[in-house]
């Protein structure tokens, strides 16, 4: 598609590009600082308030965190749980969203109201823990996936999206004798790639960043995910000065903190660009019409 550009349009484009580049830099810089800090010595981090390149390059922080197999193991665990969990959670959500998108389905309103109710109210940490325990899921990776299998918010958005898909598509498939499951699988899902990519990302990030579930449900340290370590180094210093800290405690060095942040954040950051191609503009409607 070719869009003719006016002078005003060009000025806008230029201003927009400059502005967005600035936004990009402002959001990137702090992470660069964390990244650079993870390769710096403690003395340098203490001396220089902000930097993007360490003067004295040091691998000490990484040597420390990789001195035991714990981190590598947690990294692999987190990636696997995130991958499996995302697929499972997305499958649960999509299968529930599709029938709810049918306005003629009886019981639909009741179910949706209960979903919204559950979005706002929750039973709390301890009853959920007891449930997971009674289901025999303690110390199992399923405890990180199943209790959060459907996010009501995602369910509603995906349902709304299905609702807006052109009805003719389904009707013609129906004529050809396809069942609803076949329609969902062969027609709707391929059309919904941008939305599925979006919610795959949301679910993946949700599992990746989840800290409470591994804390509560996994008591075996060898099963821990990265967030347990990340939270430990970043949250411990919050407690300083509250009077509830072991006086023998010396908080982890800044460099180690930064290195843990890098290891726990970089893999999920890299994930996004891979999904990005599914956000391509006009894909959905183009394929519908074509």
């Amino acid at each position: 598609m070719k869009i003719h550009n006016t002078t005003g349009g060009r000025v806008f484009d230029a201003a927009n590009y400059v502005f967005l580049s600035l936004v990009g830099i402002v959001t990137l810089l702090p992470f660069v600082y964390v990244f650079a800090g993870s390769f710096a010595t403690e003395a340098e981090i203490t001396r220089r308030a902000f930097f993007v390149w360490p003067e004295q390059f040091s691998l000490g922080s990484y040597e420390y965190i990789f001195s035991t197999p714990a981190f590598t193991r947690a990294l692999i665990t987190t990636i696997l749980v995130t991958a499996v969990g995302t697929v499972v959670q997305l499958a649960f959500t999509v299968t529930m969203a599709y029938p709810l998108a049918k306005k003629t389905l009886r019981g639909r309103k009741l179910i949706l109201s209960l979903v919204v109710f559950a979005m706002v109210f929750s039973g709390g940490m301890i009853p959920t823990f007891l449930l997971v325990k009674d289901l025999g899921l303690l110390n199992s990776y399923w405890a990180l996936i199943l209790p959060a299998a459907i996010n009501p918010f995602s369910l509603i958005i995906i349902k709304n999206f299905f609702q807006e898909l052109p009805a003719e598509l389904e009707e013609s498939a129906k004529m050809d004798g396809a069942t609803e499951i076949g329609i969902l699988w062969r027609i709707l899902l391929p059309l919904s790639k941008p939305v599925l990519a979006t919610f795959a990302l949301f679910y993946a990030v949700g599992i990746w960043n989840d800290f409470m579930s591994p804390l509560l449900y996994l008591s075996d340290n060898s099963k821990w995910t990265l967030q347990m370590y990340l939270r430990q180094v970043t949250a411990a210093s919050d407690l300083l000065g509250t009077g509830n800290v072991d006086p023998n405690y010396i908080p982890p060095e800044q460099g180690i903190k930064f290195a843990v942040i890098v290891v726990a954040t970089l893999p999920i950051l890299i994930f996004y660009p891979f999904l990005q191609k599914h956000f391509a503009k006009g894909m959905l409607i183009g394929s519908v019409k074509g």
Partner: protein
Amino acid sequence: MIRRKLTLAAAVVTVSALSLTACSGGGNEPAADLTSVSIMAPFLEAQPPSADGAVQKKLEELTGKDININWTPNSSYEDKTNITLAGSDIPQIMVIQGKTPGFVKNAEAGAFWDLTDKLDKYPNLKTTFPDIQENASINGKVYGVYRGRAPMRAAVMFRQDWLDKLGLQPPKTTEDLYKVAKAFTEQDPDGNGQNDTWGITIPKWGALGTNSPYDLIEEWYGAGNRWTEKDGKLIPSFETDEFLEANRFVKKMVDEKLINPDFATFDGTKWNEPFFNGKGGIIVDVDSRVSVLVNLFKQADPNNFQNKVGFVGNLEGPDGELHAHPTDGYSGFLAVPKSSVRTEAELDKVLEVLNTLNGKEVATLLNNGIEGVNFTVEDGKAATIKPETSEGKAVSTDIKSYAQLGMNVAGNNFYPVKQASDYEQQVFDKRTEVMAEDLKSAVYNPAAPYVSATYVAKGAQLDNIVADARIKYLAGQIDEQGLKDAIKLWDTSGGNKVKEEINKLWQDNK
């Protein structure tokens, strides 16, 4: 419409609740014969020790039991404690980090064994510091074996090179502290010709009773340690005249810009920065920070770091006396839950395990590591083996967590650590010496063992009233009358009740 849905929701809730109660009953295992012991403990490092590490193996060998330690991140320990107590899979020993309101409630509901009359039977659990055991109790009831910590740790550290350059002596009194701070601010101690330094750096730690610089200076002025006895009654230290005097003193320093201007907001994790970077020359904190600071200078310049950090202990107040500030001397305790250890006979076995943990052999393992692997003994000190083997390194990293299991109720039952260089050893020895000397003048918190019901319910909120007013007064937002009003507000919002309860407990236990 909505109401109908809610009714239905409620019905679903009730049904599932019933089914849940049905299945969460039962599950009482028969008494274990103690071939294994489970322990829940916090870890404070970046990562917990591995379950198949050398320290773990040695620990099991020395105790003759399977020791299952459930390491839990320190940052969410309280959450995990409550979850654990709500479930049925409860460890036999739980490290409890302090007398938090949550712990007090659980203990008073009967969650833990009362060990008051039991510990003396076990040679390594019988404390040589009964006062500290009393501090760690709830109104005299001992619910766990306390984890001993050096009670004296308050120190004033300063840039030694600045002091030398200005030809000053280390401070001995609070008045000296003022003089040094003033000189550090006004006499260009770094010699760069600019007026860009200040005296004391204070972070935003403003809560009461956190051993903050404010708490320390107040105690040095004679205000007491949280509570103080006056006319035969206990009163909170902020209701003394000395408290106001001490804060007038700090305010004078704030007004004369001898303290960092952002003391109300300064990030405590960056406390070392102004000191290291030559901005603020004095820190009032625990003495272990001295070694952290020395280490920073060493890292920056391994050849010239010996003359940067000087320190003294507690300072004499204006009355010419030394009121040294100790902590309560413990950091939480190891408690035994009743739901996992059901009989006295079982309790006895668990306490025997704790007794073994406190013996010389195991205490050395938990605190020093494994002799010949990561340390050797030189002149009665544990010296790290250099160069470190990967095995030695793993042991050294692990024991930072295992030390959390140490109780040391009869003093430290292990070797002191030999410092990396002679200079650092001198600093360490001087720290030990200064703190031992100050301990003789320690003024303890007379109310430490007492837990008032009102304080459990709303103490944190109450204390905030005074803590915030203190900072506002120092920042010039309210005057002294405003500070006094806040203290009155503490009284009328529930403080009077707290005083009443504490005094009653104090009288009863005298």
